[in-house]
């Protein structure tokens, strides 16, 4: 796919609007409480019975954080009480013990991801026990290509932790940085030094981690071009394999912590785009490839290789190289994707705990995809991962007439084509270098659920696309 990005401020301003991130289609607001654990079990049984059952991905959510970052929209619990970790980890093990036997033993776990919250809220020995238990219930792949990753808060990383994670089998780490600018750090309640961050990245290298990711955020309060550029320069020198640059989504009605942010300190739309532009320019100048949405990677990284080969995938954990696997989410609020279904655990700790304690699967809601959902999910996946839609391929795979089936979507796409975001090339619809930054906007044309917003909707459910 074309890796060049074109940055047209006016165009971005005209086209930017709230939209889903498409880590799933249909997106999470469509999940319903009508989906039960019986549905989940049925989907797992079906998935075991495919001619070649899919490999497994495990997502483990650790919701605790020592202090609240004000920008955060994740499901997390702020506490300094480290003793809360042990009972949570015990219940994770019990959940795994319930879920794992539903899957046939010949289905390897090729991807394991610890996310949060702050996974390293659990100390290294507790994490080691947890990974060990998961490895007893599931069959971990021994292949070199397996991805065992962990999100780390550099502020809580102690000496020897990183080496311990490597010994547990982790080979990828992801560090939250956001911005090194001190004024910004104070405004978002996240004081994190350059030194502790870089030394954690270094420790990953010496411990044999295959890849390090750094998360940055643009659009934060008090953020300036000069300050952000300085952060980018520091990061580029540390040369992590992957960099994600997320846009801050200010939705204080929805995320309580964000009410601590003074919205008068937020950059305006033009400043936001300026910050994004400086990030893109700095990273691409330093040799990073644009993977899609908010992600960049060094040319030798697995993501860049997969992008070039057209084999890139996307799931709830973001971009991945693993062929579509079935995803099992463990822990409060985690999402599973089994066969043609999504399901989500209880978001809050008490109902999740009591379900696990009673030996029930802690599933709160979910969705069974219908044929139309499956077709549209595939179209959006192509767009997000390859920057194009291969109409011929969709037609063969689903036995539809693309132009007829998607007449409505194509009509919605026309204004974007007029803006030069997409071009029609034979049987392909291609996101142009101008459109590459607007993949979410293009994907929204194919989202059946956006066409009919619910009447009760009084506030945006989704963040702005940029």
């Amino acid at each position: 796919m074309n890796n060049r990005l074109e940055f047209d401020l006016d165009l971005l301003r005209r086209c930017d609007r709230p939209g889903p991130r498409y880590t799933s289609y249909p997106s999470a607001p469509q999940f319903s409480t009508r989906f039960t654990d019986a549905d989940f079990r049925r989907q797992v049984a079906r998935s075991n019975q495919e001619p070649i059952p899919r490999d497994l991905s495990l997502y483990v959510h650790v919701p605790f954080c020592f202090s609240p970052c004000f920008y955060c929209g994740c499901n997390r619990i702020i506490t300094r009480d480290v003793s809360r970790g042990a009972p949570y980890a015990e219940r994770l093990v019990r959940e795994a013990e319930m879920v794992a036997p539903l899957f046939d033993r010949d289905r390897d776990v090729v991807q394991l991801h610890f996310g949060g919250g702050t996974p390293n809220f659990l100390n290294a020995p507790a994490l080691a026990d947890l990974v060990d238990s998961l490895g007893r219930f599931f069959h971990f792949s021994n292949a070199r290509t397996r991805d065992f990753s962990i999100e780390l808060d550099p502020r809580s990383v102690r000496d020897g932790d990183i080496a311990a994670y490597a010994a547990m089998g982790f080979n990828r780490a992801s560090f939250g940085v956001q911005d090194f600018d001190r004024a910004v750090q104070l405004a978002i309640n996240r004081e994190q030094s350059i030194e502790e961050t870089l030394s954690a990245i270094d420790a990953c290298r010496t411990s044999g981690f295959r890849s390090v990711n750094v998360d940055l955020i643009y659009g934060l309060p008090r953020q300036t071009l000069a300050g952000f550029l300085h952060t980018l320069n520091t990061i580029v020198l540390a040369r992590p394999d992957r960099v994600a640059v997320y846009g801050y989504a200010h939705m204080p009605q929805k995320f309580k912590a964000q009410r601590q942010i003074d919205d008068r300190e937020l950059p305006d739309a033009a400043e936001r785009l300026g910050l994004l532009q400086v990030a893109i320019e700095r990273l691409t100048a330093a040799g990073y490839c644009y993977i899609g949405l908010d992600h960049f990677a060094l040319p030798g990284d697995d993501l860049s290789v997969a992008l070039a080969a057209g084999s890139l995938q996307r799931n709830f954990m973001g971009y991945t190289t693993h062929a579509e696997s079935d995803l099992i989410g463990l822990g409060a609020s985690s999402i599973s994707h089994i066969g043609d279904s999504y399901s989500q655990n209880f978001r809050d700790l008490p109902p999740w705990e009591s379900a696990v304690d009673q030996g029930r699967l802690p599933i709160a809601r979910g969705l069974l995809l219908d044929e139309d959902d499956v077709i549209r999910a595939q179209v959006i996946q192509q767009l997000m991962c390859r920057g194009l839609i291969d109409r011929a391929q969709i037609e063969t795979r689903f036995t539809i007439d693309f132009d007829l089936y998607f007449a409505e979507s194509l009509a919605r796409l026309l204004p974007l084509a007029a803006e030069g975001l997409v071009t029609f090339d034979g049987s392909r619809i291609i996101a142009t270098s101008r459109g590459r930054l607007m993949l979410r906007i293009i994907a929204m044309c194919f989202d059946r659920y956006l066409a009919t917003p619910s009447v009760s909707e009084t506030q945006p459910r989704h963040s702005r696309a940029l």
Partner: protein
Amino acid sequence: MGSPRAGSSPIADDGDAFRFCSTCAFSASCLAHGFDKTKLEELHLLVAHVGPYEEGDHIFREGDPFEAIAAVRTGTVKTYVTDSEGREQVLGFFLPGEVIGLNAISQARYPCNAVALDSVMLCRFSFPNIAALATRVPGLQQHLFRLLSEDIGKAALLAGNFTADERMAAFVVSMSRRHAARGFSATRFRLSMTRTDIANYLRLASESVSRGFSRLQDSGLLHVDRREIEITDPVKLEALARNILRE
């Protein structure tokens, strides 16, 4: 919005009072001898459309009195027996146009169970009547004998000492031919049976079936996406199946 997968879905064209269903297992032999549907009615031959049976519904069970054979109109039927320890042995899979109950002809009772693997519609022929008709329609009798011998042949094929890959290839080629015989694509089709059932039928372990499919896929002979099979190298696949299918 168009209808997804309309082209690949093996749904039979229903007949009416005058026309046979497009998948009818017997229409060709009857018509060839001047017996159209009206004439069959005159002979009081009971041809009843039954169903739908849903996934997991039994059509008949071992030991039930044998009254009728039935042609599958839509869906897939699995036949099986259980041994004294309760272990299931899969005998066969029946696709649209294929006939179940033939192995009961020599007996008064069905010697096996038949269960629907998805939504199944049948065309039921009361057996005494069709046997009587067969004496008047030589083609029909021949056709019945052919169906019977095919049924016996299918079971015998897998009894030999064949490799897992040969069994897998023979299974896929057989599915492909049977889909093609009903006018559907020979190279792209959906498997409605579970991995466990395929393994049981081929006398392989469940994991061996997956490894077999993976090997065939890695060698470029076919492509598997969930339950959809695409045969990408029919020549090589047929070659691998030749020892079992013998043609």
